[in-house]
């Protein structure tokens, strides 16, 4: 027995610390190991608990984040000077580059434990946290009612295409401060030469495949798309047709179907025929995947990709611009975004209204418009201001450590205006590969098929079995 206890001690240890804390009762400060948040006590008076009583002391909001962000520090300082009755305690994790992964793990498990015990921070940046699990166990507060009740908050001031698409059902649990655009970069001139017409705002992957075939047969560049590898494209296409392969309510996967092996074969054929290629890093293809981090980054990235394209075809690469990534057949038309720096309010927080007020402050135009931080601001006015500033500037210096080595980049106003429709049209949220287990599975397992080592059916069966395990846990 003693021996065996090893096996379950991990689970029980967790239980000990947590239930132990709860058992010892109420408001007592019980330190959860690894979590230096003391919970949500009032620093001066423990009496004014529910926020209604005028505070003698300050109300304290604990804000936990892994990444160090100067923006947070600045915002907190400013907010505290505007609201003398509020104290915001920023808890960022002390990580080093050398031990980053271990530090992240440490932060995640400490925060998980604290959240489960109901002793977590009031406000937390969820970028690296398993917030899906938090939502599943109702540990996060729904921000929608807070937004609706707040008369000073106008949802239309923000990019609702992003906000509405990070919802879970009807509830909004995570508030992104900024986002990236995920799309294709392509040279308008080179594409026009092929004479192929398409509407990238509404194309699905199968539309794209047709377009791609037409483009390569026109005799210009050898490939239509440069992509990491067939397994990634397959993963992408499965996520795009998710409902075709996975039925989460019935807990059933359909990867052993002919449509999945068909898709695998289709992807392989496209790579075999060179329509999609993983060599050449995009220089020899009409499209390549890009992530655009900000208006400034848009101009710079397009410049860099254009130069790379020139290495392959001298006359191309002068008119690079962003195209929307094809979307799934059974979802609505539009491009893709990826949120950056999202926060959530703990469902167990005693200072939810105060925390929301601070979030709102972080979302305000003044806080969001400085172009010093990465990401497109979620605030529309701040975005407009950034564009305007950039146009006024006329030119800016590229990143010193980037491929352009600090060369000046001219601001192309027309190009920036073209960005609008993409910023407003991105409606699909891109998840991290590792947060999406099934996608990770498909990517690792299908590699053997694309390398020609296993049959499509054998791989499909493997994926099917594992997918069923994941879905039925």
């Amino acid at each position: 027995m003693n021996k065996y206890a090893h096996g379950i001690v991990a689970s029980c240890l967790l239980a000990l610390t947590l239930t132990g804390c709860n058992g010892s009762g109420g408001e007592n400060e019980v330190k959860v190991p690894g979590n230096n948040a003391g919970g949500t006590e009032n620093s001066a008076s423990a009496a004014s608990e529910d926020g209604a009583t005028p505070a003698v002391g300050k109300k304290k909001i604990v804000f936990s984040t892994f990444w160090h962000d100067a923006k947070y520090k600045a915002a907190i300082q400013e907010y505290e000077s505007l609201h003398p009755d509020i104290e915001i305690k920023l808890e960022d994790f002390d990580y080093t580059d050398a031990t980053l992964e271990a530090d992240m793990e440490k932060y995640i498990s400490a925060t998980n434990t604290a959240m489960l015990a109901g002793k977590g921070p009031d406000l937390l940046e969820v970028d690296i946290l398993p917030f899906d699990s938090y939502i599943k166990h109702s540990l996060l507060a729904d921000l929608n009612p807070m937004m609706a009740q707040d008369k000073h908050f106008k949802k239309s001031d923000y990019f609702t295409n992003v906000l509405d698409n990070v919802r879970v059902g009807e509830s909004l649990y995570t508030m992104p401060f900024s986002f990236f655009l995920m799309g294709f970069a392509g040279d308008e001139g080179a594409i026009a030469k092929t004479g192929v017409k398409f509407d990238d705002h509404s194309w699905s992957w199968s539309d794209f495949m047709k377009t791609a075939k037409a483009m390569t047969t026109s005799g210009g560049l050898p490939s239509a798309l440069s992509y990491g590898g067939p397994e990634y494209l397959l993963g992408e296409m499965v996520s795009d047709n998710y409902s075709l392969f996975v039925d989460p309510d019935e807990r059933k996967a359909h990867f052993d179907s002919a449509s999945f092996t068909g898709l695998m074969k289709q992807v392989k054929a496209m790579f075999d025929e060179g329509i999609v290629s993983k060599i050449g890093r995009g220089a020899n293809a009409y499209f390549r995947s890009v992530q655009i981090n900000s208006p400034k980054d848009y101009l710079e990235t397009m410049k860099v990709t254009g130069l790379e394209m020139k290495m392959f075809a001298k006359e191309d690469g002068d008119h690079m611009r962003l195209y929307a990534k094809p979307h799934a057949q059974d979802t609505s038309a539009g491009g893709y975004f990826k949120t950056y720096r999202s926060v959530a309010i703990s469902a167990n927080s005693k200072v939810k209204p105060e925390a929301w007020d601070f979030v709102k402050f972080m979302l305000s135009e003044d806080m969001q418009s400085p172009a010093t931080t990465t990401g497109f601001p979620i605030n529309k006015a701040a975005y407009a201001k950034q564009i305007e500033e950039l146009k006024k500037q006329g030119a800016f210096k590229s990143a010193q450590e980037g491929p352009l080595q600090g060369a000046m980049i001219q601001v192309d106003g027309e190009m920036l205006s073209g960005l609008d429709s993409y910023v407003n049209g991105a409606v699909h949220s891109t998840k991290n590969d590792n947060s999406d287990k099934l996608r990770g599975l498909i990517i690792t397992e299908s590699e053997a098929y694309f390398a020609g080592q296993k049959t499509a059916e054998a791989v499909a069966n493997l994926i099917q079995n594992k997918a069923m395990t994941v879905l039925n846990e």
Partner: protein
Amino acid sequence: MRGDGMTFLLFLGPSLIGFSMFYLIPFVLGVYASFTDSAFGGRLVGFSNYADLLHSASFRKAASHTMLFTAIGVPLLLTLSLMLAVLLNQALFLRSWLRTSFMLPLVVPVASIVTVWQIFFDWNGTLNAWLHELGLARVDWMQSNWSMSIVVVMYIWKNIGYDMILFLAGLQSIPKDYYETASLEGAGRVHQFRHITLVYLTPTLFFVLLISIINSLKVFRETYLLAGDYPYDRLYMLQHYMNNMFFQLDVQKLTAAATLMVGCIVVMTYGLLRAERRFRDNTE
């Protein structure tokens, strides 16, 4: 006597406190948590977590794979380690060296060995390269029904030394005169083995069986390091399920599964100990 009691407590205290702190109390709390809803400090919900758990097809799959593994691995391990013990109990060239070498897997850290195994059994690994050289079709060792045999081999490799030592101790406690008398009366080797060795080794056998079963439930570490959190179907065992539940913060299912597993082990241990007692009563 009072002084004795104090000394007793003094010596036992530290380990008792440690045991309660890290094993007993957490386990009791875990059992409690398995009867509550949502995270911690939830309401009591009776057996609904257990119902959910048994409803989960993956849990049932994991449990059956665990049983299958134990059913294959333990008898094999017992047979092999007993054979080895009998062999090494005789005068043999380099005997003490051989004994030591079989103990080595116990002290080698698993993580360091697993990398070698991984390279060896990978789809593009060493073993398949050899097969290819010999003109044979390669086998996807970790992603086919072969995968369980590999874990069985690993389990045997890891535990054979330990079991062997236990058996050796048992063998050496059998008086030599029994064998001498038997051989004087003309009993053959097989006969001696069946009627002397096995009979007098039975108490040891029960103990080794118990330890081996419990060790077979701990093979997770090797499997996890070898094949990750979602291995090939056959390798997906109870600890995988619990591990994945832990990472999904599903404390209810996790504690319910752990409680259920402990329940089964307690029942099994009780049964084994009773069988052993009955056996001893019968022989005496």
